[in-house]
């Protein structure tokens, strides 16, 4: 049985919220199963956007950046519906 890594869910929610993962990735009703590569690529994309080393890992700098106060608008708009469009 896969064992969740501490903080993984939170990180995935962050990545989905700001456009690095499809919104369905964190929808408990969809039962989405993501490959490790998909998640690693999403982390790398975030790291690139934030000007961090692109390790693909949730290292200290990445976690710190994800905890930095920020604007709620998505960084990438490639995935699905954007909350900004609802109006």
């Amino acid at each position, binding site marked *: 049985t896969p064992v969740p890594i501490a903080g993984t869910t939170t990180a995935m929610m962050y990545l989905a919220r700001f456009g690095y993962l499809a919104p369905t990735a964190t929808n408990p009703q969809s039962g989405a199963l993501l490959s490790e590569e998909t998640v690693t690529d999403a982390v790398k994309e975030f790291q690139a956007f934030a*000007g961090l080393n692109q390790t693909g890992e949730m290292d200290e700098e990445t976690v710190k950046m994800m*905890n930095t106060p*920020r*604007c*709620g*608008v998505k*960084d990438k708009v490639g995935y699905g519906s954007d909350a*900004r469009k609802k109006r």
Partner: protein
Amino acid sequence: YALQGSRWRVRDLNYRITKYPRGLTKASVDREIAAAFKVWSDVTELSFTPVTSGKVHIEIRFEKGEHGDGDPFDGPGGTLAHAYFPIYGGDAHFDDTEAWTIDSYRGTNMFQVAAHEFGHSLGLSHSDVRSSLMAPFYRGYEPSFVLDQDDLNGIQALYGKKTTKPTPATLRPPTIGGGSTDDGETGQPSSVLCGDPSIDAVVTMSDQNTYVFKGSRYWRLTEKGVDSGYPKSISQDWDGLPSNIDAAFTWTNGKTYFFRGGEYWRFSDLKMDADYPKQISKGFSGIPDDIDAAFVWSGNGKIYFFKGSKYWRFDPTQRPPVKESYPKPISNWEGLPNSIDDALQYSNGYTYFFKNGNYWRFNDRRFKVDSADPAFPRPAGYWWFGC
């Protein structure tokens, strides 16, 4: 920068604050919001007019939690605000659980966040240029605001350049309540340089003033640190000079040369000479593009260029100006690191090398980094910028 894909068809926009935040007077909020819009109207032909009733282009609200758009705020920290692109209405919402402040290192600076959000309201997406206003992350209070070249390029791609020159007073947000600023009139150290004392370039001009360049801003140095009234915008004051320059030096003819990428610019004081920029490969044959540093060494009057772990010596009186024996390893300069940010022969005759917020003083006679107490490298913020 990144454009979302929509923009306003009209240039004269109006806005209305329909819900004010707790803890600040309406008048002070009005001033901050106006200053935030002014960031964009100073560099385009856009105009923003506050109104108190009726239908408006951009509605501004300070809200808590769920506030009707399906994108609830998350309490203090985290998400601070969000805004809609023009095609979705342009409205801007701010999380009212944040401690919004004005001209203070405490809380969250309303002006900075509002200026960012209004960038979205005008059609700009998030930028991956970290120094830009449109980067998504809040950087903390910055007392002296200058719009980054990246933001300038983005907004002018949408709405064109301003044809009438903004008044100098509009180049920075007003100081509300007469409080002192960290970068301005009080002559206090620059928080931007003190927070991150790494630099792009440093050069002494023919008028003997020394300038530091970093991103889209520049500072004039004095014996005590940064001169009052700085930083200023490179694009505003240096005719045609880009941001993020690589290196600079002043030649014995009094001309100052700036380098970025594969190009160089020549200035006489603050005026760019005609027909610049030019290609480095044309004007400085034998010198690579994307150099790290350049300076003129009074020991022999030759120009030295640094890049990575190598350096080149350039003698414009010789053909070829760079001998075949170059490049050579920087390790020849005992005690110097590779990949320096820039170097400068200062008016005291010493040559100084800068890297990552530190500096080294080079002893020309012994051809090694000076032994001194405290030892080099030393923090540039303290010794050079008066932090």
